[in-house]
């Protein structure tokens, strides 16, 4: 058995830690790029949301490298994502691939027994003891946490750095080095090292960079390829950015949701505008917009795949928040036809707008 999984941001780093720790064979699909998307688009139903298409591209490229089993999480808030696996299974079969799917659904949907059975399938070929398996899982979560922290820090500090490009460089080196580690322990200490490094980079605390919150549909905000590496670009522009949605957030949210203790602050903040969970992460998006304004951000950018149902609802709400709070919010819709040039122009225009607003305030007009 050779396991693979679809890309989503830095998950591949935590996945490497997990599979190395378990001692099971795995393939990390080649990094997302145009080619992956083209493959995915060619074989996917036309109107399906973008994440689906990229994932199909990941599977096919992973199979070319010997993968025969794919590990997938099930529901991601009640939305199309929950139906992905069925379609993807059919699709891969139709294309003549013999790919096994291990779908980790929420225990409330499939029962805890079934979940353990499916988890068991992941570790069949692992010769680690129960203790070893638990440790591998724990280490992987630590890795996920660390890389999310390093990334968030780099995105935020980029606005303050004295040596232009330093944050971005550190972040890139960090990821590269993590992938060169041969076991989870080594990876954890490497990540810690980079986390410390970011603590000591020279910053200009008197600088007051633009601050932008990235909100929207979880896959497209987390997976940089799908949003044209917007956070990298913001770093280049010397803008500080922040995003609540991360793989770690997702894990925590899932774990706490049966107790209804998940994301309390976001829920609280969304209350005046969208008080109910409607599927996907629409409520989170709305809550994050409010939080960003309260947190002193200059603006927010919402990103979502074309046709994304929950985010279309939040997009209807965001202009009201923007008006009520005098807080600029821009919505960007991405799909396989989105042209990069037009997209970047819009991001730049938005940054200009935020800068102008600042100057106007300074001039007292």
């Amino acid at each position, binding site marked *: 058995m050779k396991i693979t999984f679809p890309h989503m941001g830095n998950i591949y780093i935590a996945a490497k830690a997990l599979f190395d720790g378990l001692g099971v064979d795995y393939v990390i699909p080649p990094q997302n790029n145009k080619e992956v998307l083209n493959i995915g688009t060619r074989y996917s139903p036309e*109107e399906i949301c973008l994440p689906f298409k990229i994932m199909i591209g990941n599977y096919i490229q992973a199979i070319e490298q010997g993968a025969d089993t794919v590990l997938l999480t099930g529901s991601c808030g009640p*939305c199309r994502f929950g139906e992905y696996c069925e379609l993807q299974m059919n699709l891969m079969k139709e294309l003549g691939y013999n790919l096994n799917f291990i779908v980790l659904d929420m225990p409330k*949907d499939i029962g805890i027994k079934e979940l353990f059975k499916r988890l068991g399938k992941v570790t069949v070929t692992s010769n680690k003891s129960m203790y070893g398996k638990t440790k591998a899982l724990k280490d992987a979560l630590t890795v996920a946490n660390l890389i999310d922290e390093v990334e968030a820090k780099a995105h935020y500090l980029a606005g303050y750095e004295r040596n232009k490009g330093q944050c971005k460089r550190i972040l890139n080196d960090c990821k590269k080095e993590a992938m060169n580690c041969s076991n989870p322990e080594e990876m954890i200490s490497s990540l810690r090292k980079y986390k410390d490094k970011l603590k000591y980079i020279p910053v200009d605390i008197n600088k007051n960079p633009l601050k932008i919150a990235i909100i929207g549909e979880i896959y497209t905000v987390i997976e940089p390829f799908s949003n044209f590496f917007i956070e990298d670009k913001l770093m280049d522009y010397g803008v500080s950015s922040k995003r609540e949605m991360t793989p770690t957030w997702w894990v925590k949210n899932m774990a706490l949701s049966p107790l209804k203790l998940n994301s309390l602050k976001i829920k609280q903040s969304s209350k005046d505008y969208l008080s*109910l969970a409607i599927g996907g992460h*629409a409520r989170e998006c709305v809550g994050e917009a409010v939080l960003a304004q309260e947190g002193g951000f200059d603006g927010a950018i919402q990103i979502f795949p*074309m*046709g994304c*149902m929950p985010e279309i609802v939040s997009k209807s709400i965001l202009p009201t928040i923007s008006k009520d709070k005098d807080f600029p919010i821009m919505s960007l819709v991405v799909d396989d036809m989105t042209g990069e040039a037009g997209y970047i122009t819009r991001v730049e225009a938005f940054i200009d707008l935020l800068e102008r607003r600042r100057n106007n305030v300074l001039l007292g007009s």
Partner: protein
Amino acid sequence: MKVGIPKGLLYYKYHPFLITFFNELGAEVIVSDDTNKKILDEGVKYCVDDACMPVKIFHGHVASIIDNCELIVIPRIMQLWKNEYICPKFCGLPEMVINSIDNMPKAITDPIYATSKKKLYSWAKLAGKSLNKNNSTIKKAFNHALTAQRNHLEGIYDQGYELNIALTGHAYNIYDNYSNMNLVRKLNDLGIGVITAEFTQEHILRAEASNLYKRPFWTFTRENYGFAVNAAKEKSVDGIIYISSFNCGLDSIIIELIKNTVPSFPFLILKVDEHTGEAGINTRIEAFADMLERRASDENNISTHG
């Protein structure tokens, strides 16, 4: 009090309930007109452009009656069956409308969980309270409304046609003749009878859907998939037509599921939006009708030889 009810989305399924309920509460019920060009245009103007056409049309219906009513009903349908969900846009419909249209009157937006009589009644209670009615009046109106809904038989079951198709899709696409460009009449004119899902029993829909790897968590999946697949397997029709709208996230999945399960059964997918031209739709329906006829006569020929 004048209560406005927009004739869009699941109005097509639940109008007997809604109208009876508010009538019995003593309200003057204002229902918007059948969808027309003006309503569609207004909808397109107000609604976020990423939305699907049915949601835009709903916006148009709201805009067309807000000046004539003091209270408007925007059903926020959260759940129709236990453990099943509904399109996120239904759950966020009031937010979409209220944030897009100015000068809205007061609106009834309480969530509707129609999974049991009791749960539905809690919606009715809140709605009745917005009209300052007491419990016994609300209870009575609610019971009458339920009866009206139960007595109302929706659905198309044409008889006497040589060729028949299963017409599937959301109720508001099937029954809004403006948005589907009189599809049913067109089919009838071509000599094709139409059958809709309402005549297939619930347990059959469920049985078909349970063959899927994953329990479908959308009510619409179960209904449309179950119906189409069952009709194909039972050969109770000659083909399936799925009337859908561009950018419908649910249909994009359901259509694939149907295709996968009955790949060789004649299946026509019609997607409409505000830019769809009628001529194109006509051509596609005619071509499909021709194909069904050819198939039927081929089969007859084969059977005379065999």
